[in-house]
């Protein structure tokens, strides 16, 4: 099935074509979603950790202030509260934020990410819970394995190294699959996708005055791919590129007259070509490119 919108969007966004997946809405309309990159996932996690770290620091200072007035052995109760609340705070942060309508922590929001259920249905709390509990293990496993091995002291250097590599593979599972799923995502049936906001822009073919008129023969020279490239060049506002493209088009269609304004020439050709190709589409032919005759 030809999906012009989908193909073109891949060009606009920096993400590779392989990161686009299809999601079918309950109404039966397929929508393209873009899997969040490993780099933005990592950045989002760092931001979240910084926020949680600051919250912990604030809690610590608050407790210090509260208990400090009693004097003496204040550090012990503080240590208990910090040890317990660190665990609770960390998990609540992820659980509460991801179970809200935006389905994203602050880090994910800043990086333009959100959590989505892989089956296209609503993201349930259970899924959010599953993916976040697994994080505890995925992230801390390498350190725990290393720590316990070193602590018991009955493992040699090579064993520690092997264990560490294994645990690291566990943590970096995300890098080894195309859908950028953590093990938590795998178990919960979720994936993390980019939130796309595409501004509505004016139709290039609408309005304005027409200076150049093209014959059907001149419009028959190109297909949909070229039309979309022409749209990109026009929207980019790159004068040099427009100059080049205008020359190429003039040569192909055999136009020898003067071109006082490249942009005007290209806009008019775009207008003509789009009307021409859309007419063909309505009549049942999609001419993909200039070689498709």
């Amino acid at each position, binding site marked *: 099935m030809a999906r012009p919108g989908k193909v073109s*969007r891949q060009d606009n966004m920096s993400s590779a074509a392989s990161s686009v997946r299809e999601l079918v809405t309950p109404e039966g309309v397929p929508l393209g979603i873009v899997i969040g990159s490993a780099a933005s996932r990592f950045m989002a996690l760092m931001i979240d950790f910084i926020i949680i770290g600051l919250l912990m620091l604030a809690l610590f200072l608050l407790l210090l202030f509260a208990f400090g007035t009693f004097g003496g052995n204040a550090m012990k109760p503080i240590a208990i509260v910090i040890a317990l609340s660190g665990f609770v705070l960390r998990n609540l942060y992820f659980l509460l934020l991801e179970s809200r309508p935006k389905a994203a922590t602050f880090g994910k929001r800043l990086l333009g990410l959100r959590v989505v259920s892989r089956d296209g249905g609503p993201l349930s*709390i259970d*899924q959010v819970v599953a993916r976040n509990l697994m994080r505890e293990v995925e992230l801390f496993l390498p350190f725990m394995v290393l720590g316990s091995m070193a602590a018991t002291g009955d493992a040699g250097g090579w064993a520690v190294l092997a264990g560490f590599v294994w645990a690291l593979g566990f943590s970096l599972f995300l890098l080894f699959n195309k859908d950028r799923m953590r093990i938590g995502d*795998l178990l919960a049936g979720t994936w993390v996708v980019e939130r796309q906001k*595409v501004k509505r822009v004016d139709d290039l073919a609408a309005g304005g005055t027409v200076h150049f008129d093209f014959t059907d023969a001149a419009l028959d020279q190109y297909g949909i791919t070229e039309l979309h490239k022409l*749209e990109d060049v026009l929207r980019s506002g790159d004068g040099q590129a427009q100059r080049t493209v205008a020359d190429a088009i003039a040569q192909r269609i055999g136009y020898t007259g003067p071109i006082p304004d490249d942009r005007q020439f290209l806009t008019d050709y775009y207008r003509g070509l789009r009307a021409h190709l859309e007419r063909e589409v309505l009549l049942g032919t999609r001419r993909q490119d200039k070689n498709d005759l």
Partner: protein
Amino acid sequence: MTRAPSMQTATIQSVANFRVEREADWAAFEALLDRLDKRGPKRLSEEELLQLPRLYRATLSSLSLARAISLDQALLAHLEALSLRGYYRLYGNRTGLGSRVARFFLIDWPAAVRALWRETLAMLLLLVIGGVIGWGLVASDPSWYGAFVPPELAQGRDPSASAGQLREMLFGGGDGFLTGFAIQLFVHNSQIAILCFALGFAFGLPTILLVLYHGCMVGAFLQIYASHGLLVDMGGWLSIHGTTELFAIILAAAAGIRIGAAVAFPGDRSRIDAAAETGRSAATAMVGVVVMLLVAGILEGVGRQSINITGARYAIGGLMLLGWCSYFYLLRARSRFDHG
């Protein structure tokens, strides 16, 4: 032949008008979504909320139509992104965290635990076997103790400690040593519980080993105290929080084993699907485990420090166990009533 050109003109006109006619709906939808993002659903009027699904469907049908007739890629990209935003808003998430939390404690958690009863029994058995092994090995040769209990957890409670030292640790009250130790043990046991669950999907083998190992550790601890005639006191020290904590570890392991079994024997499903499906229901039980671990942590950090009578410790531990069991296995009538 005279009809064809006029039809063409008409259809071209409709492509041109397509955008003009519907643009107002798209703009209204986008503005509504922006307001929702900024202020949340509670601040919108009822009428606006009713508009949401209508505008969403209008946009979605515009997208389908545009894909069929329009070659304006900027417009298609905008409509697709707008539809996706609307889709997330309408279908993306189940809201109502409050009622969800109530439902979790009343129905879902006990039900998830009940569904794991077979695995729970198996893990209990495994823990007991581990305990017997640990006890037996340390009884036959005290040097086994070091293999089961990491030195940072033992903190001097090893075979060479005297009865007085061991006793001091059981009834030491709120001195710094035990407080720090309690935290460390809490963190340690939470990690074991989470590991038991999370490693389940490696066919459950790591889970089985961890439960056995944990049993060995408890068995070794008990043996050390028993050899100094302190078994009853040690049991009290352990049971005040241990009934809750060991129960939590057993449940975590049961949930992990359930996932492991689904991965090993997926049936008609793919292994990934099987893991995802069981993962979700097992995760429900797992949230409960985290709650139990917190309760255990509080009992351990506060209760055990302030209650120094062995009988009272047994009473609290026993009551907790009774409470958990009746909550999980007897609340059934309530949930049936709710559904009925």
